[in-house]
């Protein structure tokens, strides 16, 4: 019943999209943040989600992760329309999100962060909040997980407030690998990092894909898109304006799609 071992259940061969968004529309007052956007992601695939600031990238991910609800349109998981009313729903459905602000608890340790909201606890018949923490099991799984991902942290019993930006980013990405079963969305995971730290995070993103997850990667960095993404979807002013396979040669085309020139 290891939470990490559960990742092995992926049927990597399936060719149907594990996540499909159809006609997503979202308004904030008079602002049309998303206008009839459709995207699909398959297992073992990284889709780059590109666009200028305010293009609707974060809104789209927040709708998929249950922070916002779509005004119109549908979200299909493994082909079945799925209602995602809250972040808890999304995580329950196997969708993990690495938020731009990391959503880490500064006052908790890396291990406590990994299992926040998903604590390993017993006995099962009690309501979730009244169960007793299986701290040792969580500590062990944390060590195994970090070793597998080749993430080194100075110490596991210190709170993450004491850790550097790169370490914190690695913790946030690693957390998504603990429970991701279908989809992982990463919102600018390398935005605030130096070269070496970015590399480590990109390796983690590749590891998520290799586990059989469908990965949505939001980034402004064209190099990363060309290197990692199997497809790139471009949003502009809430609309999907293009989709292509990114290569070194069409980088310029991507950029002009993003800025609309």
């Amino acid at each position, binding site marked *: 019943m290891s939470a990490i071992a559960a990742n092995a259940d992926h049927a990597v061969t399936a060719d149907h999209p594990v996540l499909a968004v159809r006609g997503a529309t979202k308004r904030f007052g008079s602002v049309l943040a998303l206008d009839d956007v459709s995207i699909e992601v398959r297992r073992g695939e990284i889709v780059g989600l590109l666009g200028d600031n305010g293009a609707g990238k974060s809104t789209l991910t927040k709708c998929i992760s249950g922070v916002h609800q779509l005004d119109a349109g549908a979200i299909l998981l493994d082909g079945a329309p799925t209602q995602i009313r809250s*972040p808890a729903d999304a995580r329950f459905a196997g969708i993990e999100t690495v938020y731009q602000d990391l959503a880490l608890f500064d006052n908790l340790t890396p291990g406590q962060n990994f299992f926040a*909201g998903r604590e390993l606890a017993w006995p099962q018949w009690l309501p979730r909040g009244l169960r007793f*923490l299986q701290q040792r099991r969580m500590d062990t799984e944390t060590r195994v997980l970090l070793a597998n991902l080749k993430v080194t942290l*100075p110490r596991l019993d210190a709170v993450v407030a004491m850790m*550097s930006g790169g370490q914190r980013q690695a913790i946030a990405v690693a957390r998504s690998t603990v429970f991701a079963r279908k989809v992982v969305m990463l919102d600018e995971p390398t935005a605030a990092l130096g070269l070496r730290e970015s590399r480590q995070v990109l390796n983690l993103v590749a590891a998520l894909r290799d586990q059989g997850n469908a990965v949505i990667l939001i980034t402004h960095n064209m190099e990363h898109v060309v290197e990692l993404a199997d497809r790139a979807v471009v949003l502009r002013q809430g609309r999907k304006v293009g989709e292509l396979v990114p290569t070194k040669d069409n980088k310029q085309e991507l950029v002009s799609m993003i800025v609309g020139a």
Partner: protein
Amino acid sequence: MPETGNTGTTLGDTALPASRKPEAVPGLALGLMLLSAGPVVILMLLIAVLSFLSPYFLTGRNLSNILAQTAVISVVAMGQHLVILTRGIDLSVGSNVALASVVGALSFHAGAPAIAVIAVMVGCGAAVGAINGLFYVFGRLPHPFIITLATLSIAKGLALQLADGRAIPGMPDAIDALGREAVWGLPGSVFVVAGVAAVLFVMAKTMVWGRWIYAVGGRPDAAVRMGIPVSWVLVSVYVISGLCAGIGAVILAGRTDAGSPLFGNLLELDTIAAVIIGGASFLGGRGHLGHALIGALMIGVIRNALNLLNVNVFFQLIVIGVVIVIAVESDVLRNYLEGRVRVMQAGRQS
């Protein structure tokens, strides 16, 4: 400090001379350690100094007296501590104690047995707490200050109304026993405090609920996104705080053999002070039960000592205020030092 394996490398954008950092960190770590041990050290020093200043201070009778006098603050401060952990505040605890004691006294005079009187008091406290929590969360109030200020007023008014403005003497013998000496020269109330502390310690430390309290206090928006039922966690801490106020009412009623609408006056300030002086962070998410207990004890010791030394009662208020300022400033200093450690870590990371 932690071994990062590769202390020589620096990242391009945080480059500082690598050789300076490792030696700078231990100093910071020492400062942080001193700050976190601060309240205990200060309490020890206080006790040491006072036993020189007054021959009566370190007598068994006086120490037992201090424990008896701090029992109510201790119990209620443990509840307040849970609320403060979630970045909240419960201003209603003092009035809640008064209302619970009055309701208890009335139920005793209506013929209720001791066990029912205790249940009525604790239940009354928990009910006020539930009102606080439910209005704060589901009434979408911007801050618990507002609703608990309202229930401070309502509970006080209700207690005065029900008791007709006077203390109601008479409590069941089982409750009065809490005020009397039980074992080892200690009053029964001390064992109630210990029992509540043990239960809350186990709940906060070993149950998922406890972990959620720290998560909610550490970062409420992230707690929502991680699927933690934040609303119910918040309601639960106000219920527990009210419950602790109810237990406080039982102890106070036992010591005085009465219920009174004047009980618990300014207890909200004493308990908040205890939590902060004890070393929990007012910013939420940091601290443990020990902090609330140490803080309560420190307030008890300061009051007791100033009494023994014949210091003017008004001066006590000033001293406790000054101690609060020192405690809050050391929390600020701790946050600053941690920020420094983080910068160092960034530089040391490979």
